[in-house]
């Protein structure tokens, strides 16, 4: 499958001479449509810089970034807002909703920026918010919403223009564990059902299980790329190194999110695995 995002030998420097800092060093990776890539790493590792470059908010000092057919790293600054508007959906750590607008208008504004009338944009935004369980909060201002609700508005805003890629910066940082988990499940569902790629930057170890791939960024470079396995019983992504249960069946190694899933699998493996001829 053709990747939707190609990042090739990307470097980003800040300052020059003695004050030069290389935030991202010669990084390459691709993301397939519908894939969820989780970028983890310590503070100051270059995660946000990388995310900003992928989102067309920052130009790389060297290298190539391509979203679909568009090489955004070679684009004129004046063309980048259009890419950000139509190809990328942003979910920010602090939600970053516009305080003067209602839930509905906060979501609709992205469609309006893309040229829809206010009415058309609202028609587009309303079902998204309703799907995310915010049908009763459409006219509420952000200040009257809980953290989880704000995050759902932010997700709806990121989706309203049907972008190819969703970039989420610490999406669970301001949420409790329950809402954080719900948010991640939603993102996973969106990625899988709508075939949108999701790139998440996070410190939160708990969300590793929803990612298809975890990339570890340190000192501006990927150190060790951890491939995630899928639990054949519940469909959850599982870190191969830190899985609580694994088993070999039919000459293949299976990873599970919990012992219960492994036991269920072992009881009737043919329900979950069909030999590939």
């Amino acid at each position: 499958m053709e990747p939707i995002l190609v990042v090739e030998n990307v470097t980003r420097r800040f300052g020059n001479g003695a004050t030069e800092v290389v935030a991202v060093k010669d990084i390459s990776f691709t993301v397939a449509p519908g894939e969820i890539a989780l970028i983890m790493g310590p503070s100051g590792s270059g995660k946000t810089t990388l995310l900003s470059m992928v989102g067309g908010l920052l130009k790389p000092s060297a290298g190539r970034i391509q979203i679909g057919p568009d090489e955004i790293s070679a684009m004129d600054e004046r063309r980048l807002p259009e890419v950000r508007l139509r190809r990328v959906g942003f979910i920010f750590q602090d939600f970053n909703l516009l305080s003067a607008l209602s839930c509905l208008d906060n979501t609709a504004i992205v469609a309006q920026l893309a040229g829809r009338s206010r009415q058309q944009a609202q028609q587009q935004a309303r079902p998204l918010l309703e799907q995310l369980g915010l049908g009763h909060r459409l006219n509420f201002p952000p200040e009257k919403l809980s953290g989880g609700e704000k995050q759902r508005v932010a997700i709806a805003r990121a989706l309203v223009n049907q972008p190819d890629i969703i970039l989420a910066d610490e999406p669970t940082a301001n949420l409790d564990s329950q809402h954080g988990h719900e948010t991640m499940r939603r993102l996973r569902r969106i990625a899988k059902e709508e075939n949108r790629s999701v790139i998440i930057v996070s410190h939160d170890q708990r969300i590793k299980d929803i990612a298809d791939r975890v990339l570890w960024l340190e000192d501006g470079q990927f150190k060790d790329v951890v491939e995630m396995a899928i639990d054949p019983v519940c469909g959850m992504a599982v870190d191969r190194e830190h899985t609580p249960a694994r088993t070999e069946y039919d000459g293949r190694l299976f990873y599970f999110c919990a012992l219960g899933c492994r036991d269920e699998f072992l009881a009737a493996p043919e329900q979950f695995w069909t030999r590939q001829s």
Partner: protein
Amino acid sequence: MRAEGLFYLAWRNLAQSRTQFSLGVGGVTLALLLMLALDALLTGTGENLVAYITQSGADIFVAQEGVKNMHMAASAITRRDVSLASHAAGVASASPILYIAGPVKAGGAEVLSYIVGFDPAEPLGGPSEVVAGTTALREDEAIIDGVVARSQGLNLGDEVEILGETFTIAGLTEGQTNIINSVTFIRLRDFQKLSGSDAVSYALLKVKPGYDPDAVVAAITTRNADDVNALTRADFAREERQIIQDMSLEVINIMNLAGLLIGLAVTALTLYTSVLHRRQEYGVLKAIGAKNWQLYTVVIAQAVLSLSLGAGLAVGLVWLLGLTLPLVIPNVALVLTGQAVIRVGLAALLIGVIAALAPAWQMARLDPAQGFRG
């Protein structure tokens, strides 16, 4: 993004904080009110000042050569001049008046007045109408304005002192008092007796139906240009107003400049703080795809909205003042002209454009990546 969306966002930004909204719009309103109220006051004063001229019923005023108005002017023409004017083609009547600006002692106060001596037998020269008493004055009778009478507790039959002589109030007018003076009428014959001369100041001409006052003016000027100056009522009133405008031009300019600067400062500060306050949000808008021009439009729309509201409120307040102020201060009139509203509208536009410059510069420098930096 379409204009409606940008304007809606601007409106929401503006209206979100009631305090900021009130301060912004209130400041602009006050600044524009300052400009508009002074203009309306001077226009109203000018209109009141020419009330005698505009309500006289005369089509043409004949004055001494070189004299173009009444305020601060002395005019003397002879009976022959009046007669010559009356015989010009198209003149129906020529009514002489004697005029001087002087004090009228009324109820212990001295009121600066235009003292007009008119002949009750002539069709023109006296008050256009009286609200009490009569215009058919007898010897040593006077007509004063109702505002003066009320302020001094005078009524018909009471006495006033005009040019050192005592007169009995026989009639009361309305609308003949302004912020500067009042108009008092006595008989021409009484006035001439006091001045010891049979000269008159002006002749008020009525033109026959079908005749053009401008053509009659030209005819009189041709026949008697060395002695008199004839002007149509409109020209004579314009010259009178011009005197007021010339006298108050510097004050108007200073107040307009003050209003402009206050309005500019308030609008610029409100916009600047609003943009500063929402810096993060504008950064987010940039990050999610808003273009610089769209953000500029939001700021300009915010300026236009607050200035339009301010200008609308200022116009409304001056209009309201125009209705209520004369009830409290009867000799003050505020007249709002379309020209003044346009002038203030243009000033508001100028303020908006200048005030939006700094926030627009701020917008251009906003880093869209700041949304990720929190």
